[in-house]
């Protein structure tokens, strides 16, 4: 075999070997690589029962109650939900219908005491008038579907 082909083969086999090794490591640790758990996973007992972990989902519409720095809201993944208590400053993007990730401890079956609230940003970017127009057309479509 020519020296160059030998080196090419060495590189390809090496790369394949490393890829398999990394894949094995990542799939073994995939449980630890998850940044947050959904309420469904928490209620199914898949999140740590003691200690700090992160909970992610959507802020349910009309569930936000503010009292000074204290905020209470319902976090849902549209199947199950948990009530979150938090004291502190909220990020700019925190609002109803927004995806958020909260860090803290479970305080009861469906309650969670958060020490940090992070807003998750979606992949959509558009100007305000287009967003308003989109909302109007969605509402009109929903109305048409109902009647």
């Amino acid at each position, binding site marked *: 075999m020519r020296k160059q082909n030998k080196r090419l083969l060495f590189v390809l086999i090496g790369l394949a070997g490393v890829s398999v090794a990394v894949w094995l490591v990542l799939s073994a640790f995939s449980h630890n690589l*998850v940044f947050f758990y959904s309420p469904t996973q928490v209620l199914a007992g898949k999140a740590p029962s003691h200690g700090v972990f992160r909970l992610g989902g959507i802020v349910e519409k009309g569930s936000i109650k503010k009292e000074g720095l204290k905020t209470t809201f319902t976090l849902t993944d549209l199947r199950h939900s948990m009530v979150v208590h938090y004291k502190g*400053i909220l990020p700019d993007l925190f609002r109803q219908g927004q995806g958020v990730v909260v860090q803290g401890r479970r305080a009861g079956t469906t309650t969670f005491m958060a020490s940090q609230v992070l807003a998750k940003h979606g992949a959509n970017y*558009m100007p305000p008038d287009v967003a308003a127009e989109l909302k109007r057309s969605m509402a009109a479509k929903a109305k048409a579907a109902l009647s």
Partner: protein
Amino acid sequence: MKLIHKYGAPKRFYDLAGSMVPWLAALTAVLMVVGLYLGLYWAPRDYQQGNAYRIMFIHVPNAWMSMMAYVAMAVLAAAGYIWNMRLADILAKVTAPLGASFTLTALVTGSLWGKPMWGTYWVWDARLTSELILFFLYVGYMALQASIDDPRRAAHASAILAIVGVVNIPIIHYSVYWWHTLHQPASLTLTNQPKIYITMLIPLIMMSLAFMFFYLTMLCVRARSEILWRERNADWVRKLVGSRT
């Protein structure tokens, strides 16, 4: 193959790159100025983020280039290693600091955006962590290059690191789909409709092209000076230097 050998000769490439630099630099400048004007003034505000989203016109191109430069570096390093191409060794070596600066810029701008939007400068989610690892790969590659004096041996040793590190690239790209991350998934993909409104997309694409041409410009400039240094004892370099003093 013949063509590669013809232009792969350091002297040939030195001249070719020298004649391309002014054009590449001019194109970079035009794209950068127009892209920044469109991005910072012409593009509308975002419905959720207001003006703060405009940092993406720097963040996204740099993040893309950080990955593209790495793939380029790994391919060049592999070519240099397998086929003993000196020019490929040189191009891989000078790509590393450029890629590292793209990565650092992406990390810093993302962090500055993260504080007001997410509520934190940094989280250890899969996307952010794998991008940080990319930065360490670049730095490790540069350190390895610098620690070996003989250019051929330096190129061989660091090529192995560059090739192994390439497995990190798909991890960065797919991290937002494989695991729950705080970082949002891609707004622009090859297969789906863009999730960015057209008036915001145009400046983003222009800025991406600007940074791509910036990379090519700097690649030529840096490769030229690396060639001069490596060939410092060759006749043509002596003649070149002599003619200017």
